[in-house]
């Protein structure tokens, strides 16, 4: 029997980035907030301290900071005709666990997306015609504009002390910045990071071809920084242990460095750790969320936690899962195209290639998580798609994030996979090679979706999320096009040799890490027929239930998703303050 607890004003499911930002806005007004997080506080643990922090095997290869796959995994299939099977050890993406969530092991790329991203359907239709988007691509507008999000982007960047070089201030292009950047009101809070040698080689080649390379905006702090809350960041030491690691130098903007320590000082804030939420109690009659059910993972005791407002701020997959398990909203059916929960599941269509330059010292170990030089000429709809047969695009970059010894073994293609020659090639090329990347958009496809697996369950007896996903025609064509552009840049580098430029191809492989940028499942929008939550992230079928996270993205752009998360979460915090004053449909 579950113990029923006293009512709380706002209960947030999941203690990651979005929860912290929503809580920041609410607790600033004294609103009572309770966060339920399944993981622990790692700030004083081995993973946050030298020398254990540098354990590549433990934190990177074995994914020590991520979701425990023995407790919960996902089942995967490529189409509705196949049987899905559970991934025993998923490597493709890394859901977080613990205070800070996946945002504590991120790399730091902090892009505002293209100005037209939230109105993508309108943009494509107005540029290429009303019938340009094929019916299987479920591209839709978000119900919000970039201009509405800008103030929240601004605040998020200030809180996170983002390092970068503006490319577009109030519509005026800035030399050295990204000419395709959505207009911003001012410079970044901190100057950009130091470029890497790989970045400089890439930059020179791009300039030779007439492109406009720029240094990517980053959550790795270029200097000592104090944010508006008085929280501090130290200067990045370029140690190359960023993504999949906790920064021991306090130089990476994360919820556990900048947000939770501040929240824990606030009277109306509480976080309960090692509490795993099992579901949302939903009253179908009144169309209201009553509260949540959770299990204390230490004692095994179950609790009912009533709340005035429930916010789902868990990982992308989990947000969708709660709504499906508790039957809130209509599940998406790919056969009829009806229903919404689980729809618009997207990923990131990446590809890469290796570059070997004998006479340049790349020294890959000297890097931060997001010291990248990028061009945006072929990202999203920054170029004319007439006659190309696809929509979308990708940022092309040389982002050298680390030179860790297990994961970084770039050797020319002719090298055998083991033995003396392999060792010699390693020694010869470790310091003289780097990788280039295309980070491509991923557009919603009718057959890519999430639902509950009919067979497999997690350790708590709850159904696993079933992923039906593959690279579909549109994204593969995009990848082919952008990968070719990347290859042209590589050829302009005077490199000793180049690895193959392989575009992303079906089938989707869960065994290889690609990026944690999975999005969708609970898309936002202005139309309840095609979205789970409104443009204010309010559930269409439960007025006091809100969903925040990348699960609300109707599509994924050719950028990392974090900055948009930050802006949406801060906006939701402000919206909730207004809702709590006067509960209503926002």
């Amino acid at each position, binding site marked *: 029997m579950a113990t029923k607890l006293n009512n709380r004003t706002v209960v947030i499911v999941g203690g990651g980035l979005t929860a912290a930002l929503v809580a920041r806005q609410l607790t600033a007004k004294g609103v009572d907030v309770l966060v339920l997080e399944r993981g622990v506080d790692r700030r004083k643990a081995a993973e946050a301290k*030298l*020398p254990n922090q540098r354990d590549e095997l433990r934190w990177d290869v074995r994914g020590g900071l991520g979701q425990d796959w023995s407790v919960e995994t996902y089942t995967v299939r490529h189409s509705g005709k196949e049987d899905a099977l559970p991934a025993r050890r998923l490597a493709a993406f890394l859901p977080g666990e613990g205070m800070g969530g996946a945002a504590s092991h991120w790399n730091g790329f902090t892009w505002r997306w293209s100005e037209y991203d939230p109105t993508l359907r309108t943009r494509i239709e107005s540029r290429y015609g009303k019938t340009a988007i094929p019916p299987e691509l479920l591209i839709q507008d978000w119900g919000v504009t970039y201009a509405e999000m800008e103030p929240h982007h601004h605040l998020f960047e200030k809180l996170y002390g983002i390092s970068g070089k503006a490319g577009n201030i109030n519509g005026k292009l800035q030399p050295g910045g990204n000419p395709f950047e959505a207009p911003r009101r001012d410079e970044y809070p901190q100057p950009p990071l130091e470029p890497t040698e790989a970045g400089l080689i890439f930059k020179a080649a791009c300039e030779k071809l007439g492109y406009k390379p720029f240094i990517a905006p980053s959550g790795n702090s270029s200097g*000592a920084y*104090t944010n508006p809350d008085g929280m501090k*960041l130290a*200067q990045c*030491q370029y*140690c190359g242990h960023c993504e999949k690691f906790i920064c021991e130098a306090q130089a990476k903007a994360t919820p556990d460095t900048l947000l939770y320590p501040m929240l824990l000082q606030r009277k109306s804030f509480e976080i309960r750790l090692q509490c795993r939420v099992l579901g949302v109690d939903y009253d179908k009659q009144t169309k209201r969320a009553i509260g949540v059910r959770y299990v204390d993972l230490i004692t095994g005791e179950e609790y009912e936690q009533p709340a005035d407002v429930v916010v789902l701020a868990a990982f992308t997959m989990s947000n969708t899962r709660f709504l499906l398990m508790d039957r809130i909203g209509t599940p998406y059916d790919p056969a009829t195209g009806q229903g919404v929960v689980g729809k618009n599941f997207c990923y990131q269509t990446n590809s890469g290639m290796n570059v070997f330059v004998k006479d340049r010292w790349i020294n890959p170990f000297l890097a931060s998580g997001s010291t990248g030089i990028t061009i945006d000429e072929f990202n999203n709809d920054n170029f004319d798609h007439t006659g190309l047969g696809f929509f979308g695009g990708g940022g092309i970059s040389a982002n050298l994030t680390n030179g860790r010894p297990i994961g970084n073994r770039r050797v020319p293609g002719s090298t055998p996979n083991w033995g003396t020659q392999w060792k010699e090639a390693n020694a010869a090329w470790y310091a003289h090679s780097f990788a280039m990347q295309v980070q491509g958009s991923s557009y919603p496809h009718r057959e890519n979706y999430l639902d509950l697996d009919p067979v497999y369950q997690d350790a708590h007896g709850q159904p696993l999320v079933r992923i039906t996903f593959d690279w579909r025609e549109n994204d593969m064509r995009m990848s082919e096009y952008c990968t070719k552009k990347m290859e042209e840049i590589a050829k302009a580098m005077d490199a000793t040799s180049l690895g193959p430029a392989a575009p992303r191809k079906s089938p989707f492989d869960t065994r290889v890490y690609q990026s944690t940028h999975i999005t969708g499942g609970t898309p936002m929008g202005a139309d309840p027929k095609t979205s789970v939550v409104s443009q204010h992230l309010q559930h269409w079928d439960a007025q006091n239930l809100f969903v925040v996270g990348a699960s609300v993205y109707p599509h994924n752009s050719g950028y990392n998703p974090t900055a948009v998360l930050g802006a949406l979460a801060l906006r939701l915090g402000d919206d909730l303050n207004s809702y709590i004053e006067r509960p209503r449909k926002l």
Partner: protein
Amino acid sequence: MTTIVRLAALIFMVTSVACGSSAVAQDRERGQQAFAACAPCHAPDKNGIGPRLAGVVGRTSGSVEDFRYSRAMKNAKIVWDAATLDAYLAEPQKVVPGNLMPFSGIDDAQKRADLVAYLSTLKATN
């Protein structure tokens, strides 16, 4: 504008005289600014990611009782003074190899001098 600068300089001189040396007063202020690089981990009066720094000048390395140091720092047995702090802040890993402070050092000698001047003002409270 110049009047304000002169006035400020005058006040500065007066306070400097009171402190006994103009160089220290100047250094201390800049040193306090330079301390921003240390502040994410170090505070004067309480342990954070790094040990508290009140009373660091004159203290033996690795001796704050309630802070968990690396073996390297515990065994270093350096007495922190202007010279040893300057060397350490220039290249922490060279002076105490294997210590766990995730900081690569300060190249600028003037900045180090300023910082040491600031640290010397942080007196132990007990």
